[in-house]
């Protein structure tokens, strides 16, 4: 199995290189560059050009990119043009806040989604099911930023229960976590429901009932474990999305995380910071996905067998 893990980790490298390539070129294409941002309107054009020379920004794009790549391969992500601090350090400073948020959201989401999803599947077509379906659809129809604003309006401005910005107090995480958690819960619930519905039809549940197992045991023990795989997938992708897409939430709640860092860097044309941050975030979500894929092996022995068999079958299509 370690062969499988190593293969997956090695595969990350070309992906990261490709990602860096794409992002670097796209950002570079944007009008204006970091000098414009730092210098502002006061500096003369000549002065700006001198700055660009010094920073090496006037070199042709392929040249700059290769320089960047060289640094990348050494493990050096460069220095933020704006803050002059090491990209890696800046990112790492902001990462814990984002991790906290992502984890809190996922916990909230799971607590809501899994019981609802199982119930909806077991009582298919009843009013419980219809309600859950509508709630689920509602959850993915509400834009996160608007939900955040509404939450702030009700719970912070009107009721004053929770703070609306920053992460100073332990209560600060509640509103953002619930905001994102609800949206995540919707997708996890739908996946739980459809996965359970698939499993509920299976013959081995009939065998379990014929053994005299109680309906509760049939659903919780026999059915759920089999339904887990797609649910784990969704949890993984949601967590990865929360890591990178927390941009909007962090904007609304002024949460000092990585998402906000990236948007600011994009606006500042801080190519080094953006590329570095996106690479790191992508790496992080890829690791999360890898962990989920490993989790599959613990749930479904057939997948475990597949991983052990030949390292070249990576289980994904």
């Amino acid at each position, binding site marked *: 199995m370690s062969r499988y893990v190593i293969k997956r980790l090695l595969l990350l490298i070309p992906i990261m290189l*490709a990602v860096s390539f794409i992002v670097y070129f796209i950002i570079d*294409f944007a009008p204006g560059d970091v000098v414009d941002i730092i210098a502002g309107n006061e500096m003369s054009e000549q002065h700006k050009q001198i700055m660009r020379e010094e920073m090496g920004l006037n070199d042709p794009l392929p040249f700059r990119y290769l320089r960047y790549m060289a640094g990348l391969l050494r493990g050096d992500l460069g220095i933020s043009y704006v803050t002059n601090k090491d990209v890696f350090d800046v990112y790492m400073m902001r990462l814990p806040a984002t991790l906290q948020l992502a984890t809190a959201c996922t916990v909230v989401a799971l607590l809501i989604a899994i019981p609802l999803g199982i119930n909806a599947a077991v009582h298919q077509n009843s009013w419980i099911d219809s309600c859950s379906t509508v709630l689920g659809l509602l959850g993915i129809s509400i*834009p996160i930023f608007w939900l955040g604003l509404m939450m702030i309006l009700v719970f912070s401005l009107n009721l004053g229960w929770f703070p609306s910005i920053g992460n100073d107090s332990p209560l600060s995480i509640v509103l953002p976590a619930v905001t994102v958690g609800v949206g995540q819960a919707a997708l996890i619930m739908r996946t739980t429901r459809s996965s359970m519905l698939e499993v509920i039809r299976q013959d081995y549940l009939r065998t379990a009932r014929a053994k005299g197992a109680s309906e509760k045991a049939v659903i919780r023990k026999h059915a759920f474990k089999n339904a887990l795989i797609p649910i784990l997938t969704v949890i993984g992708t949601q967590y990865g999305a929360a890591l*990178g*897409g927390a*941009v909007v939430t962090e904007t609304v709640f002024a949460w000092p995380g990585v998402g906000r860092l990236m948007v600011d860097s994009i606006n500042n044309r801080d190519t080094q910071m953006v590329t570095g941050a996106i690479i790191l975030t992508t790496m992080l*979500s890829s690791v999360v996905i890898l962990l989920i894929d490993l989790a599959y092996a613990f749930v479904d022995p057939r997948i475990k067998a597949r991983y052990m068999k030949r390292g070249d079958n990576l289980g994904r299509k």
Partner: protein
Amino acid sequence: MEENSVIFDSGLTASKKYKKRSQISEIWHNFKKNKGAVLGLIVLAIIIVTSLIANFVIDYDTKIIRQVVSERLQGPSTKHFFGTDQYGRDIFLRILYGARYSLAIGFLSVMVSLAIGGVLGIIAGYVGGVVENIIMRLCDVFSSIPSLLLAICISTAFGASTLVLMFSVGIVSVPAFARVARAAVMTVVDSEYIEAARAAGATKMRIMFTHILPNSLAPIIVQVTMRVGSAITTASSLSFLGLGVPTPAPEWGGMLSESRAFIRDYSYMTMFPGIAIVITVLSINLIGDGLRDAMDPKLKR
């Protein structure tokens, strides 16, 4: 010869008691049974009609853009159903007008995804080999970048405008469509019923149209409906961040961005555009869900 022939009689005629429907009317029949889906369809129809006639009924320059300082920041009233914003513009009219942006961006961006992703996926599934590998690895790379970030990057690079917004939201979904298209092509091409059709003497064209196409369509249609809803929310998120449709256009996300500063005392400004987004996306999702249930033969009760 009598002894050899098998007589099919009462068994078959008895089962003709309930009507057999064509595939499409079967789907429609199942769809109709889903009350939520039908409701979504009605609401969406209303929204579409509104967006189509808005241009003719409401004058853009006077009602949507013009700033009337004397009327600014009024709460909902009979004159202004949803109140006015900080520039005195009627929010209700702006929301009605804004439907055009959301619907257009939603549908067109998905068309972009479908066109690019669908073609890539079909090529990958049909041709296979190195081409398939390259396409799939590219998809992996693009989908490992968190989608909102990718859209933000593209929008930043090419400037904030409706067109760019459509494109960047569309690009984000390309990998998903490519995968679905490829999977659909692959499963159908390998199916036993294709072999059976070939064994029975069907020509390649006939196989393509009567077997492969209808069966590949269903997952693609489902993806399309699912993605339109999320395209609209993503687009409004981008506008909220200032990277979408530029002001003063009455796009719902942009309206929400502007309303932030006034949330404490003029909360109605924040409520209504958001509700508009929710209703629109919810109806689309209800339709999509209903379509998916209606098209899945396994779920026939």
